[in-house]
């Protein structure tokens, strides 16, 4: 069993290193095939481990001693328990399908080999993150995924910055423009720096844990956490959550997720749908024993999650940038997961994480196919009627959208309704109503996307695009994910059984009548949303009339609540001014002057002392006598001091 663990962990690394050898060569198909094969191997190993874990066994290895200094003992250890096994399976399945899809998507890109190397390195870091058995290993994986995400978002780093115009349809800050951000390099830096700022808080949390408990191993920490006083535990919980906020793009760290759409679409599918952004949720789930001790922090998490869900869904209503719509939808569903985790229903959050990974990643992959067919066009209003040209992609995307909206019997229904039930049953009616409205909005904008892209008039002819379906093997890669997004919900009973041996079981009980009412009400609003989307499109081919477009609320949503503008003006510009000041005034004038002064002093004294070196013997003798005089004076002084 340990061998399977090591295979699952290190196979992506082997693939990544193999592809790295070819990084500077033109496209070699073998890199794509080899890395996909390695990931397939990892996926099979994870599935076998899952089947082993279902029967109640846990695999725990300690690979190496890493830091052994004094009292600090941090090993490289890995554990495969029920939570890890779930995450491993989700990550490897999605990653394998994304790799195969990328072979088709990136086939005309000249940095083909480099892409696969980065992608596999990312999967390796994510595996370290979910399989580690202590906080330090988690942090290594955390940083690794941050780094690989930076590399991948900025994959096309040679694209230059777009100017910051105010025009609503061209500004890089607006969701109506063809640009997702100022440039891929800018988006990558933004993602990485935001993550780093949040990681500082996570490090503080880890230091607090180590300081108070003396160990970073999960089992030791969780066993002793209730022995600390409450304010310490609250502090630890808050700091760890801030770290999770950075990774999972909760407000106010949410800017980077929408801008990360500058990267290639398979990257968005893997990282920003299924794996990296769920790392924050994984952290909260893993540290559930800390959060159960301090339920007030959990309440804050749930409130923040609900806010983010509504915040993101509202921005997706008016956007025309296809990938941004899907990104906002991811952000919104992350809010759902944090609501579940905050209210104490950790296994529900994990369940929603798994189902969401499947349907969201296949949505992104489908969007990638559409973009590839339309020559990288991203504005949904310039497409239309693609269903006849790309029936299979269209079908898969429609299925995924139904799952996202949460219609029975697709996967989204089971996980989303569970969350709504938890919210209602624990008495937080405000959170329930926010989530309920958001469910309706989610259904609406998902189907708005489908209608604009696949049905209606074919507006792309005037732009000269010739859409065609993508390769067969790409569709074959997307198919398992689509099937999973249908059937994953049916495993709920088995999943609950497996996972509640580690995570706390659900402690809200809603009686049957209320349960059925909740389900009916939720399904009703979802159907209203879908219906509005479909029928308004058939009638008008547009949703918001011209009069609405000039109103303030439309502009507010289109400019993403002016948040990017706020960051640019209030955070970035002053910081740049401070940096420039520090460089010019402090660094150049003060520090450099001091260092130069030291050198200049030595040089000048040397230059002045040259006079001593005449060629004259008499002068030399005089200097000798002078030295003798000085030594005698010193001798007298030293002796008289004694």
């Amino acid at each position, binding site marked *: 069993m340990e061998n399977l663990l090591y295979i699952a962990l290190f196979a992506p690394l082997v693939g990544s290193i193999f592809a790295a050898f070819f990084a500077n060569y033109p496209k070699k198909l073998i890199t794509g095939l080899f890395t996909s094969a390695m990931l397939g191997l990892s996926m099979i190993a994870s599935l076998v481990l899952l089947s082993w874990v279902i029967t109640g066994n846990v695999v725990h290895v300690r690979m190496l001693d890493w830091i052994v200094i004094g009292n600090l003992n941090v090993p490289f250890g890995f554990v495969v328990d029920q939570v890890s096994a779930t995450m491993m399976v989700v990550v490897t399945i999605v990653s394998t399908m994304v790799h195969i899809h990328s072979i088709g998507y990136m086939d005309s890109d000249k940095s083909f080999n480099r892409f696969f190397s980065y992608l596999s390195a990312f999967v390796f870091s994510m595996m370290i993150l979910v399989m580690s058995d202590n906080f330090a290993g988690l942090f290594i994986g955390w940083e690794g995924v941050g780094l690989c995400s930076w590399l991948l978002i900025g994959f096309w780093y040679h694209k230059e910055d777009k100017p910051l115009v105010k025009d609503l349809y061209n500004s890089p800050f607006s969701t109506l423009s063809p640009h997702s951000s100022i440039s891929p390099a800018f988006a990558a830096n933004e993602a990485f720096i935001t993550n780093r700022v949040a990681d500082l808080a996570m490090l503080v949390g880890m230091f607090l844990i180590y300081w108070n408990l003396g160990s970073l191993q999960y089992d030791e920490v969780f066993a002793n956490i209730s022995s600390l006083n409450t304010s310490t535990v609250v502090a630890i919980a808050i700091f760890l959550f801030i770290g999770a906020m950075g990774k999972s793009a909760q407000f106010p760290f949410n800017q980077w997720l929408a801008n990360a759409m500058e990267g290639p679409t398979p990257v968005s599918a893997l990282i920003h749908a299924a794996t990296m952004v769920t790392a924050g949720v994984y952290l909260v789930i893993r540290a559930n024993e800390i959060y159960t001790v301090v339920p007030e922090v959990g309440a804050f998490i749930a409130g923040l999650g609900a806010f983010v869900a509504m915040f993101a869904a509202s921005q997706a209503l008016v956007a025309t940038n296809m990938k941004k719509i899907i990104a906002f939808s991811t952000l919104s569903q992350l809010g759902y997961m944090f609501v579940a985790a905050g209210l104490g229903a950790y296994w529900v959050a994990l369940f929603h994480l798994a189902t969401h990974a499947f349907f969201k990643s296949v949505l992104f992959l489908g969007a990638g196919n559409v973009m590839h067919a339309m020559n990288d066009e991203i504005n949904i209003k310039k497409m239309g009627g693609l269903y006849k040209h790309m029936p299979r992609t269209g079908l898969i995307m429609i299925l995924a959208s139904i799952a996202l909206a949460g219609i029975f019997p697709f996967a989204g229904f089971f996980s989303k309704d569970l969350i709504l039930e938890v919210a209602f049953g624990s008495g937080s009616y405000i959170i329930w109503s926010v989530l309920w409205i958001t469910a309706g909005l989610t259904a609406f904008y998902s189907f708005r996307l489908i209608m604009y892209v696949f049905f209606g008039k074919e507006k792309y002819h005037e732009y000269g695009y010739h859409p065609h379906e993508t390769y067969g093997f790409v569709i074959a890669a997307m198919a398992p994910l689509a099937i999973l997004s249908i059937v994953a919900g049916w495993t709920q009973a088995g999943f609950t059984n497996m996972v509640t041996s580690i995570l706390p079981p659900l402690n809200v009980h809603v009686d049957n009548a209320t349960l059925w009412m909740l389900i009916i009400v939720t399904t009703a609003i979802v159907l209203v949303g879908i219906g509005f989307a479909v029928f308004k499109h058939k009638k008008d081919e547009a949703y918001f009339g011209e009069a609405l477009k000039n109103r303030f609320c439309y502009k507010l949503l289109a400019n993403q609540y002016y948040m990017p503008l706020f960051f640019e003006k209030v955070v970035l510009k002053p910081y740049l001014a401070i940096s420039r000041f520090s460089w010019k005034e402090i660094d150049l004038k003060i520090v450099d002057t001091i260092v130069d002064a030291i050198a200049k002093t030595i040089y000048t004294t040397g230059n002045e002392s040259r006079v001593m070196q005449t060629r*004259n*013997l008499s002068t030399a003798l005089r200097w000798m006598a002078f030295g003798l005089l000085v030594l005698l004076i010193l001798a007298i002084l030293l002796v008289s001091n004694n």
Partner: protein
Amino acid sequence: MMLNDYLILSSILFCIGLIGVIRRKNLLMLFFASEIMLNAVNVGLAAISKFHGDLDGQMFAFFIIAVAASEVAIGLGLLIMTYKRKNSLSLDNLQSMGG
């Protein structure tokens, strides 16, 4: 006589020699002054040797005399060669090693 007196005499003679060495520009005169310094040291050593009942001082002085004699021989030989080349004995003409 006290030891102090001999030592003070020795130091005064040493400083006279020092004045000569620093002041003189003629190489031959320089040699004279260095002889004075050597003799001053000899007197000092002999005085200490007498007042502590030790013969080491006198031995040291004896060897200094031997060394001084051979130094004079070699020094004069080198002086002759320098004089043949430059035809002058002034110290200021010896400045060929620049700094």
